[in-house]
């Protein structure tokens, strides 16, 4: 898939442009819905990071596995999770892609090999590493793409995971989305070596930096590294340098640690505009752009309508799924003397069923 996309005809790239616009419109809608109090919890937007998101996911094979951090709306959409299922999840509805259990940070879709959406910075790295270990144990010809932010590279889990992946030759590509800030702390203030890709060298692992706003360059780099992971069991670090247009989360105006001028300057290099310019050079016309834009907007509208009408998850199933089927019997003898309401809320609610 990656090799064909590298030489993608304008129609393939135009589809990816459409995905980028979908993500941008989706994030704008999510912010509005959050401010209207229909989305709760945390809500981290990825506007500005669309080329890095769409390009790396486009380089994955359909049966490759994806694991990400919490800024994950774009990754879920790029991996093909329907906007309806993602928006319903943000609304905390029954048919959300995480059953209303996860919200913004914990999107997932196992049928698409998307194993979450994880909320502890760096915590997903050991898990992605273990998934790659499982692929090797089974002789499966797949790779894992593990996304993280620039803030995660100073966690111990980063070091431990890269070292394990390297000593065990595991098929995993660690994708660092370097959007310049871990919350409000810039890469320069946080990392003694701000060329983050260079850290791969400490593990004798390939490390590359790519302009994360250049869609074609992202596809090429990610495709090459994922192929090496799949075919040669070579882990790698890919640092995609991009910029977060919005604050850390919807609750952050994003101005305490950077200037308006900086943001405006970076917006001039908007990856959607850059992709549009590229496609225009290759003969895509205004009519085609307008059609793609309209389709993205309509998809977002449909997702909101769906989420509005989707019912809440069934409260009676509060504990469902927490333990494996058959576990109900193991817990039966725990009922005597349990705290108020526990019997009704947990033990009678499908624990282990």
């Amino acid at each position, binding site marked *: 898939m990656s090799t064909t996309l590298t030489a993608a005809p304008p129609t393939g790239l135009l589809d990816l442009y459409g995905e980028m616009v979908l993500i941008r419109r989706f994030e704008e809608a999510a912010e509005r819905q959050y401010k209207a109090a229909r989305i709760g919890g945390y809500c981290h937007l990825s506007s500005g990071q669309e080329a890095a998101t769409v390009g790396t996911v486009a380089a994955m094979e359909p049966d490759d596995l994806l694991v990400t951090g919490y800024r994950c709306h774009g990754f879920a959409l790029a991996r093909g999770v329907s906007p309806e299922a993602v928006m319903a999840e943000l609304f905390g509805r029954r048919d959300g892609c995480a059953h209303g259990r996860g919200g913004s940070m*914990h999107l997932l879709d196992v049928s698409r090999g998307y194993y979450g959406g994880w909320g502890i910075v760096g915590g997903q790295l050991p898990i992605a590493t273990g*998934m790659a270990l499982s*692929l090797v144990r089974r002789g499966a010809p797949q790779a894992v793409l593990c996304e993280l932010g620039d803030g995660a590279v100073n966690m111990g889990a980063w070091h431990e995971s890269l070292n394990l992946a390297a000593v065990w030759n595991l098929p995993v590509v660690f994708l660092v989305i370097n959007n310049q800030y871990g919350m409000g702390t810039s890469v320069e203030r946080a990392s003694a070596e701000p060329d983050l890709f260079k850290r791969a060298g400490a593990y004798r692992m390939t490390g590359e930096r790519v302009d994360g706003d250049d869609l074609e360059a992202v596809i090429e780099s990610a495709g090459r590294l994922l192929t090496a992971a799949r075919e040669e069991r070579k882990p790698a670090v890919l640092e995609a340098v991009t910029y977060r247009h919005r604050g850390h989360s919807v609750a952050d105006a994003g101005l305490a640690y950077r200037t308006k001028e900086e943001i405006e300057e970076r917006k001039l290099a908007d990856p959607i505009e850059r992709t549009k310019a590229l496609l225009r050079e290759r003969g895509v016309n205004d009519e085609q752009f307008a059609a793609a834009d309209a389709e993205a907007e309509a998809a977002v509208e449909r997702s909101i309508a769906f989420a509005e009408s989707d019912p809440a998850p069934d409260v009676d199933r509060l504990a469902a799924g927490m333990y494996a089927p058959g576990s109900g019997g193991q817990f039966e003898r725990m009922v005597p*003397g349990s705290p108020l309401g526990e019997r009704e809320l947990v033990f009678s609610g499908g624990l282990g069923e």
Partner: protein
Amino acid sequence: MSAATEAKADPSVAAPASAGTELMTYREALRLAMRQEMQRDPSVFVMGEEVGVFDGSYKVTAGLLDEFGPDRVRDTPISEEGFVGAGVGAAMLGERPIVEIMTLNFLLVAMDQVVNHAAKIGAMFGGEVRCPLVIRTPNGAGNQLTAQHSQSFDAWFAGTPGLKVVSPASPADAKGLLKAAIRDDDPVLVIENLPIYKEKGEVDVDPELVTPIGLAAVPREGSDLTLVTHSFATVRALKVADQLEAEKGVSVEVVDLRSLRPLDVETVATSVAKTNRALCIEEGWPTYGVTAELAARIQLACFDDLDAPVERLGMAEVPLPYAKELELAAMPTEERIAGAILRTLDLAP
């Protein structure tokens, strides 16, 4: 999942036909369980520091590398967070990793993977993905290992929804519970104990015999007092109970919890209804501990049965010191257990 673990936990259920018993140490029983399960299921593998070439820090995995090879007996760097998390990820794809942590103290550096990740998967994935991970690790004091190597955090893990925690006290249950943990589809923490590794007992070697998770045992029947405990404290309690019966005619019933989550309160309550007195003992610090939970549940379940307040005994609430005299002073020794039994029976001098 096996029929034995799936079956409703009920002490009246007869054990499967025996394939014969052998006298072995707790350590050997654990090894037998791993060997049997690795022979039975290729998705089972062992991973941890020094489990292979070194034969295991406490020799529990001795010989397994020769038998199963380095893919299934995988030495790791000193990276608990990394390899516990790798176990979580592998388990999510259907492997059954047994991750050995050298001692429970070191599991704290992997706490994020255990509590924030492994414990959450069933719920967060709505049952679509399971995490059949086993973490085995010894706790315990008594070897002058001092403040950072002598702790028992059983209650921290047992208080976490999404985890299962077992802590066998006998070689037979070491084999049976570890096998049940390996076959279980949820993350199970198997808390072993350093001094208990050398304890010997008869073990039914039947490869299909497992000890059900969530079912306590009553290794000693009695009429005056219910002593509820787990792990090595059970070994001590049984000795003390025999001694007090001989010396003072006191009849102590011992309940060995075996599982901490799920916790078999039913067996405890049935016993307390008979004896009307309860003493709970643990090797951890009692404040917010296993005995705190037991006391709360016993008073709710057995309020009308109790002739005396529920008593507790645990580790003195200090970081464990080095000097032997100081360490012994902090521990729930046999002498302190005897004193606690007599106090609970209003027989203290």
